[in-house]
């Protein structure tokens, strides 16, 4: 059953089209990964779901309610961990949670109980009295997650939750998110970290230039788009053009990245027989979600 349903959503900022007819159904209890390069429209799409930004066209419903008419009720159901830190720096750790509870109209006693609970969940139970200035980046992120859970949301939306975290903190956050998903919370996870999506998401939607260009479980996306293995060729000076010509003749699917040619759907080295590739300059490795991402959104740098 779809808990969030997005149909034909268009969002324009003045003349700029940030979302160009997005359709997406997010199922109850799943973790949906939303991938896309900078400026693809991930944050904008989230803002449509949470009523932080009006739709130009189309419809969004959450838990069967229309965002246009039931904004408040929808916001009460959702937890949000935004991309930018907007914790309240005038309040300490526990103050942030208690104050946030009040916005949801949670009675004080209950709020205290829940605050302790969520701090424990994110491993900050020893820091309730800390000022925000004393927290590391990773602790602040975890506090944002704790804050996003204070209303016991059925849906938790996270916008790049592990940006800037060290590996330990990142794995801790992933672990917490997995626990949440296992407890039945629907997760919408915006990210640019492919590993994160591969680890956590049941399905992945890749966005580019305001549209969703594909949607499937991560393993399927990999097999369908690039095959199980990719080969990387590092051509020597002057050999690049002939290699590319030969690959085109042999109908091998490939992409040109900086310094490298990456081929898709190639199963064995026979495909490269007779090409002027120096020894050690042809490598095989298992395909990843990152290859899909780069293939679909382009290997060139996007500004």
């Amino acid at each position, binding site marked *: 059953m779809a808990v969030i349903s997005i149909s034909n959503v268009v969002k324009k*900022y003045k003349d700029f089209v940030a979302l160009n007819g997005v359709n997406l159904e997010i199922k109850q209890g799943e973790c949906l990964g939303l991938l896309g390069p900078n400026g693809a429209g991930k944050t904008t799409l989230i803002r449509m779901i*949470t009523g*932080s*930004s*009006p739709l130009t066209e189309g419809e969004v419903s959450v838990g069967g309610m229309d965002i246009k008419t039931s*904004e*408040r*009720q929808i*916001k*009460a159901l*959702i937890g*949000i961990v*935004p991309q*930018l*830190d*907007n*914790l*309240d*720096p*005038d*309040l300490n750790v526990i*103050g942030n949670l208690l*104050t*946030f509870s*009040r*916005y*949801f*109209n949670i009675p004080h006693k209950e709020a205290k109980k829940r605050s302790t609970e969520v701090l424990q969940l994110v491993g900050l139970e020893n820091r309730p009295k800390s000022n925000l200035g004393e927290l590391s980046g990773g602790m602040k992120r975890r506090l944002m997650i704790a804050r996003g859970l204070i*209303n016991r949301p059925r849906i938790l939306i996270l916008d790049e939750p592990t940006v800037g975290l060290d590996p330990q903190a990142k794995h801790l956050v992933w672990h917490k998110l997995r626990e949440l998903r296992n407890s039945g919370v629907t997760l919408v996870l915006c990210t640019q970290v492919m590993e994160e999506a591969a680890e956590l998401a049941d399905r992945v939607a890749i966005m580019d230039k305001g549209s969703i260009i594909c949607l499937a479980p991560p393993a399927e996306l990999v097999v369908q788009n690039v095959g199980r293995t990719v080969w990387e060729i590092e051509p020597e000076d002057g050999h690049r053009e002939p290699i590319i010509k030969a690959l085109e003749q042999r109908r091998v699917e490939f992409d040109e990245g900086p310094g490298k040619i990456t081929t898709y759907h190639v199963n064995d080295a026979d495909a490269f027989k007779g090409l002027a590739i120096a020894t050690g300059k042809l490598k095989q490795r298992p395909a990843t979600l990152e290859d899909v991402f780069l293939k679909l959104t382009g290997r060139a740098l996007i500004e």
Partner: protein
Amino acid sequence: MKWPSWRFIRVWQRNRDVFLKLWPSEVTGFVVEPLVLLLAMGFGLGAYVGMVNGQEYIEFVAPGIIASYAMFSASFECTYGSYLRMSYQRTFDAIIATPVNVEDVITGEIFWGATRSMLTGTVILIVATAFGLAESSWALLIPLLAFLQGLMFSSIALTFTAIIPSIHSFNHYFSLFISPMFFFSGVFFPLDSFPDIVQRLSWIAPLTSAVKLIRACFNGEFHPDIWLALGLIALITLVFFVASLVLMRRKLIV
């Protein structure tokens, strides 16, 4: 436009909690400064000026200082204070992702600004009373009046906060609007000592009405134009309250 709900209280509570934590750092501006001014002007200048409108100068100037510092309190809170919360701390963004809407946030800010006005006005009133300056029991109404004028100045300030491009624009707000009112609204000298044109401009300046009302209650002398002053405050408050709600939604929900 959308109207606010009772949830604005939540935002007021948030600001109150922060104030209770940080107030010692704000005491100088809103308690010490007006009291120094009251004593310096009242006793220093008062010795030269003698009687004004048939009363001691310090009795004349005290209610004016209450009204102007009530104005300053709301104005600082809803310009620099609100702007910091909105733009630098992104506190408004965080709040409007909860069941609290933009209109509730803005209303909470306005009521908090008014609360600051009331606190400031009350402190100065208490000191003035301790010096034996307030003569009328009508003075008990002054905290309420300070609150009302605080609603007005907070609404004006937030309207301005909603439209400015950067925090530096508040310099203009204070030097072109707030400071002139401080000097031309009958705080330090009766309005009739000014040229005709200034008197007319002064008549519509929001602070003038506030000074009239607070002075009337302070001295217990009522002229019929206090009703006009009250009406003017109500009108200005309503206009800018609505403007701040509309403009803030337009600014924050894009």
